[in-house]
């Protein structure tokens, strides 16, 4: 029979003493220990140290104090409720600015909705002398005509607002103004004739010299007619700045009520 050497089993003596060896390992170490006094003593020493510890442990044995279980469960319950509160607090803190921003947007939306509802559903009392009423009247069907005029030599600040007769022939400053408009209309028609046949894009450089000169002359005249300057009235009595056609006689702007 092959005898195992003490060195080869030394590392397994603790496991042998503790009954942790199995199979071939157990047989191998067991055979050696059975025949080796020194290793048998080593095993006994290990077991006696273990026995001493176990006996001593009896002296240290204390029962856990009563109430440990209830104390632990109470703490678990407390921690669990605190943790929910903490989670809520943390959530509120993390979403603080988002909640504030959302609230502001919502408040704006509600305010806008409220104002819109007021404007749409509310009944507005019409004011006869309001600016909107006057503008509405000016854009309506033909009625009386007014002109902004000043006397020759007077300052541009001294503009007067005068009513013109529209039911009869234009009087006062109107013929000259209307003639000017008619002249411009004729020049535009002439220009259109001159440029006719040149395609959608008329090019002066590509035109015959005679037609080009005529077109240039017409353009100069039209441009001159359209300069913003007060027209000169008949007999140089008035400078006409602007004409107003008032739609009906219900205009109640202050100072204009007939």
């Amino acid at each position, binding site marked *: 029979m092959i005898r195992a050497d003490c060195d080869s089993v030394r590392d397994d003596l603790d496991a042998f003493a503790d009954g*942790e060896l199995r199979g071939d390992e157990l047989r191998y170490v067991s055979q050696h220990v059975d025949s080796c006094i020194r290793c*048998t003593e080593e095993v006994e020493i290990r077991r006696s140290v273990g026995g001493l510890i176990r006996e001593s442990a*009896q002296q240290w*044995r204390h029962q856990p104090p009563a109430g440990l279980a209830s104390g632990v469960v109470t*703490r678990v319950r407390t921690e669990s409720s605190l943790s929910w509160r903490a989670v809520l607090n943390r959530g509120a803190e993390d979403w603080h600015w988002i909640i504030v921003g959302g609230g502001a947007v919502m408040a704006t939306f509600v305010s806008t909705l409220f104002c819109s509802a007021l404007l749409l559903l509310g009944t507005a009392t019409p004011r006869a002398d309001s600016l909107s009423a006057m503008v509405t009247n000016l854009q309506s069907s033909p009625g009386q005509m007014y002109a902004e005029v000043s006397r020759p030599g007077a300052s541009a600040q001294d503009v007067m607002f005068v009513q013109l007769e529209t039911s009869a022939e234009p009087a006062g400053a109107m013929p000259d103004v209307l003639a000017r408009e008619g002249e411009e209309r004729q020049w535009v028609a002439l220009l259109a004739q001159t440029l006719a046949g040149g395609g959608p894009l008329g090019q002066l450089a590509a035109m015959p010299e005679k037609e080009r000169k005529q077109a240039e002359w017409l353009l100069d005249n039209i441009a001159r007619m359209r300069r913003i300057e007060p027209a000169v009235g008949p007999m140089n009595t008035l400078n006409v700045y602007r004409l107003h056609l008032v739609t009906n006689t219900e205009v109640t702007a202050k100072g204009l009520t007939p």
Partner: protein
Amino acid sequence: MATETPLKPIRVLAWSSAASADWALVQECAAGSEDACTRLVTDHQRMVYQLALHLLGDPQEALDLSQEVFLKVFRTLPQFRGQSTLRTWIYRIVVNQASNRQRWWRRRRRSQQVAIEEHTAQHGELPDVREFSMPDRVLQERETAGRVWHAMDQLPFEQRAVIVLREIEGLSYEEIATSLDVAVGTVKSRLARARETLRLALVHQ
């Protein structure tokens, strides 16, 4: 010389039934059942407290640690997957918590340690244990227990944990390895070193 082959205690409860009972208890606790939580603590409090006491050596510290351990158990209960038994899983938590605490405890104790001469100068001579009218056998047992405890207290924490789990708690090498999250070979070597240190310490005392 013939030696008796050591007998290993056989577990009466089969693994599958123990595991399923553990698993059911864990599920109930995780669902928030206070009864289940109380049952879990009641079933394991003695084991946890004794192990804490043997690792730390102070009843009040052991009690505090036991509470910490159970709180940790309930906090981390959702992580329990049943890969080990509930008992082994709790052992691991006890050892980890005790390891953290004893580092702090040792530092504190070192800083508060008072020389015996200083103590007797302030408080007088230490009482002689023989002054108490105890039987000699009891006194001798206490004296031996004190020597063993003193020797164990000198061991590094890793070795003390292994020796306590093996000799007092009766765990197998594999269970110790799982509880300490180390290899079985490490358990063997730590156990051998711890026994050798203890033997030398007890012989020379």
